[in-house]
């Protein structure tokens, strides 16, 4: 049986790369992570594998590139056997895809609006972000996980993004546990999982990176 070659073009603090690393860990897939220097110069392999966007993550499976983090997680789920990450039923899968799409469209940009803003714009950005989280809280309901009883695809998509929440809290001047306690509880629950605990960075590292990005954007 030939061995699969799995390479991840990675950036440790990228919430999108975190999704892929968690998914691979959940499936027990052995892979090689190649850290990209996004600020110093992207590798030739990244530019060749993702010529349109030149972004991480890129998963190379036996040399074939798969792009866009949510797309990669779908691919991992469909290619590597167990455990299954998406729900079994078609309607459950459509709900998961819907909320993954919502997270992709809203969370990272909503958070960026916070750390890129000052004054009145910051207040507006903060309130819009809290509104986004409240919608996700609605999707969570009283369940342990976004997928239901067990940790799955949608949890993987959001938990990666949640690694940047401490930076949004710091620069936005709010606490998620006050505004969206169920989301805070869900984050803690997911962090109890080995794949998540080993992947998520300490909040300090993210806050330092975002502080650097703020300087680059002339915010401070």
């Amino acid at each position, binding site marked *: 049986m030939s061995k699969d070659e799995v390479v991840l073009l990675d950036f440790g603090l990228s919430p999108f790369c975190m999704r892929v690393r968690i998914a691979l860990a959940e499936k027990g897939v052995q892979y090689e992570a190649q850290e990209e220097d996004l600020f110093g110069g992207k590798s030739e392999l990244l530019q060749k594998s993702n010529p349109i966007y030149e972004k991480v993550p890129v998963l190379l*499976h036996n040399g*074939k590139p*798969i792009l866009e983090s949510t797309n990669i997680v779908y691919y991992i789920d469909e290619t590597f056997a167990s455990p299954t990450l998406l729900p079994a039923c*078609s*309607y459950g899968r*459509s709900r998961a895809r*819907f909320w993954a799409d919502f997270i992709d469209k809203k969370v990272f940009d909503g958070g960026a609006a916070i750390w890129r803003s000052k004054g009145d714009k910051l207040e507006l950005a903060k309130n819009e972000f809290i509104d986004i989280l409240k919608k996700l809280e609605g999707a969570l309901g009283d369940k342990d996980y976004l997928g239901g009883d067990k940790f799955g695809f949608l949890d993987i998509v959001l938990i990666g993004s949640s690694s940047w929440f401490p930076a949004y809290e710091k620069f936005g001047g709010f606490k998620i546990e006050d505004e969206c306690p169920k989301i805070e509880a869900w984050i803690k629950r997911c962090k109890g999982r080995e794949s998540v605990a080993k992947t998520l960075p300490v909040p300090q590292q993210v806050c330092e990176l975002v502080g650097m990005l703020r300087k680059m954007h002339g915010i401070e």
Partner: protein
Amino acid sequence: MVTSNVKVLGAWPSPFVSRVRMALKVKSVDYELIEANPHEKTELLIKSNPVHKKIPVLFHGEKRICESLIIVQYIDEVWTDGPNILPSDPYDRAIARFWAAYIDEKWFPLFQLLRDAQGEERRAVVQKISEGLSLLEGAFVDCSKGKAFFGGNNVGYLDIALAGCVGWTRACDILLGAKFLDETKIPHLVGWVERLYSDSSVKDLMPDPHILIELYKKFRAMSEAASE
């Protein structure tokens, strides 16, 4: 095959609604179209899609599914009697999903910019749309592997994703003289468009660009009157 409890909330000119109707046609699923004005947030629309308040929405019994590409995937998974819409190979599926997302996130939104752009700005947007079509031409060559459609011998996911946009692309060619569908630059896509108009699954669901132009002019006149 359950067919009587399927409804689509949508409007025929919408490229996103067209996708859903094409997918249902591929699977030979009967449905009721509930016409909705995309510019009017009715109570039904807000109740059906409270997060985005947009068409299309698919009702399947008590279930409601939103976002056109998600609906197409749902249709593919539920109605397994008919031809497959998504490729069966996971890598081919990943490629199809990638390009469909490119169409929705990067390429088709350029047409919104085109609406209000003038002069140099308009020329820049026209250039970007053409560049996008060149990328999609390359995608067609890779995905079709020499066959008639992105999906191979039959219309598939990526065909459906892009087919809904063809009417508006042709409308821009006519209205603006943009020459987007230029067979000297994108010969494979131009051939593909011609085949769409003969394919039984999609030909009757491709919005007529001349009617789209009339609709657009009417909408433009109403917006201008309202803002005065």
